C-alpha cells in the first residue's frame, strides 16, 4: 500500500489498484505477478506477508512494483521492477535484475529507484 497525494495504491498478490481519498476505484490491473519476497504466502486460507519491507512505490507519473515475468510451470522466475502508468495502471516497462538476484526492499530517491537486493544496494534510473 502506498499513499501518493490524494491517492492510495494497493497491491494484492495478483491485483494492483488505485483509489482516491473518497474510496473511488480509479483503476485496477489484474495481471501482476509476485516477486520472491512481495505478497502473502498462504497456509490453508491464512496469508502472511513475508517481510515488513516495501515493494510498491510511486511518483507523479509511474507506479513501481517488485514483480516477476510470467513463466511456465517448470521455469524459475526472475525478480524485476515493473513500471505502470499511474493514470491508468497500464504496464509500460520492466527493469530486470540479474539471475537469482532478489528484491529485498525498494524506495525512490530523487530520479533513482533504490533497491536492496540480495547483491546489496542497487540504484536504477527512473524512466524520464
Amino acid at each position, binding site marked *: *500500500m502506498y*499513499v501518493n497525494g*490524494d491517492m*492510495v495504491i*494497493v497491491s*494484492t*498478490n*495478483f*491485483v494492483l*489498484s488505485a*483509489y482516491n*481519498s*473518497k*474510496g473511488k*476505484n480509479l483503476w*485496477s490491473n*489484474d495481471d501482476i505477478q509476485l516477486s520472491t519476497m512481495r*505478497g*502473502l504466502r*498462504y*497456509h*490453508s*486460507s*491464512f*496469508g*502472511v*506477508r*513475508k*517481510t*515488513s*519491507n*516495501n515493494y510498491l512505490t510511486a511518483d507523479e507519473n509511474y507506479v513501481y512494483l517488485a514483480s516477476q515475468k510470467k513463466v511456465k510451470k517448470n521455469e524459475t522466475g526472475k525478480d524485476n521492477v515493473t513500471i505502470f502508468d499511474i493514470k491508468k495502471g497500464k504496464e509500460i516497462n520492466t527493469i530486470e535484475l540479474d539471475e537469482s538476484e532478489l528484491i*529485498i*526492499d*525498494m*524506495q*525512490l*530517491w*530523487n530520479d*533513482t529507484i*533504490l*533497491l*536492496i537486493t540480495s547483491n*546489496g*544496494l542497487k*540504484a536504477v534510473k527512473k524512466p524520464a
Partner: protein
Amino acid sequence: MKLKLFFFLAITFCLAQTTFAQLNIGNLTHLKIYQSKIYVAGSAGVACLKSPTEVEWQLTLPNADTRLLEVDENGVVFVTYDYDGIDKKGGFWTNRLGDVKSFSNATIGSISSEGKLLWSQPGTVQSRQSIPGIDKNIVAVLRSNTMSISDRATGKEIAVAEVCTINGLIKGMVSQITPNQPLLQGGFIYTCAFNKLKKIDYTGKIVDDIQKFSLTKQFECITYGPVLLKDNLVFGNIGSGSSTSRIFAANEKLNDEWSDDIDKKSG
C-alpha cells in the same frame, strides 16, 4: 592523445556512476528515505548516505537477523529480532496454522541524526517486531500480540498494551504474522493487530477497537496498515474463506468511511 584522454575520462565517469558507498553494516535488511538522505539498516549496523555513493555516517551495532528502522527529524529508531525456528504442531485440522514461530534478540534502539547511539533496550517480549511508529515523545512497536510503548528520549518502556489474545490455534497464527507498523496521529497510536483496528493512547490504554464495519465487512486478518490518506486510516486484509481481499478506510473515531473488494479471486 585527445582520443586516449576521452576514453580515460569516459571510463572514469562510468566507474564513478557504478561505485557504491562502502557499507560495513552486514547484510542489508531495510531501506528508508528521509529528507533526501538514504538510511540503510543491516544485520551489523545502520548507515546514513547522502547519495548511493557517499556515506554520511555508519554505526556498527550488535548482530541481528533482521533490523528495521524509521526516521524523523530527531534521528533513527530501530528494532531487531532473530528468527529461532518453528514449533510444528502438525495435525490434519491445523494444517500449519498452529505452528508457533519463535524469536529472540528483540531490541529497540535510538540513534541521533549525527549517527551516535543514544540508547538500546532489550525487548521485554521475544517476538517478531514491527517497523517502529515514532514521534518526538514515544516509540510504538507492535509485537505478536502486544504493543510496546517506550519513551523516545530514554528508551524506557512506558506501557505494554495487549492487542490480541493468543490461545490455541490463534497463538500459532499470530506468531506467523508480520506485524504492521503503528501509525501515530494526534496523540494516539492506531494499529492493525490481527483482525482488529485499535486506537491506543500513550499510556497504553485501548481507547477503542473494531473488527468489522458490518456483518458482511469483517476485517479478517489485516495484513497492511493503517496508513493515513487525507484524514482517513486505510488498511487492507487478506481474502479468506468466502471473503475477498478488501481495502477499508476508517476515520479517527474508527467509523466506516468506505471499503471495497480489491481482488475477486485471491489474496
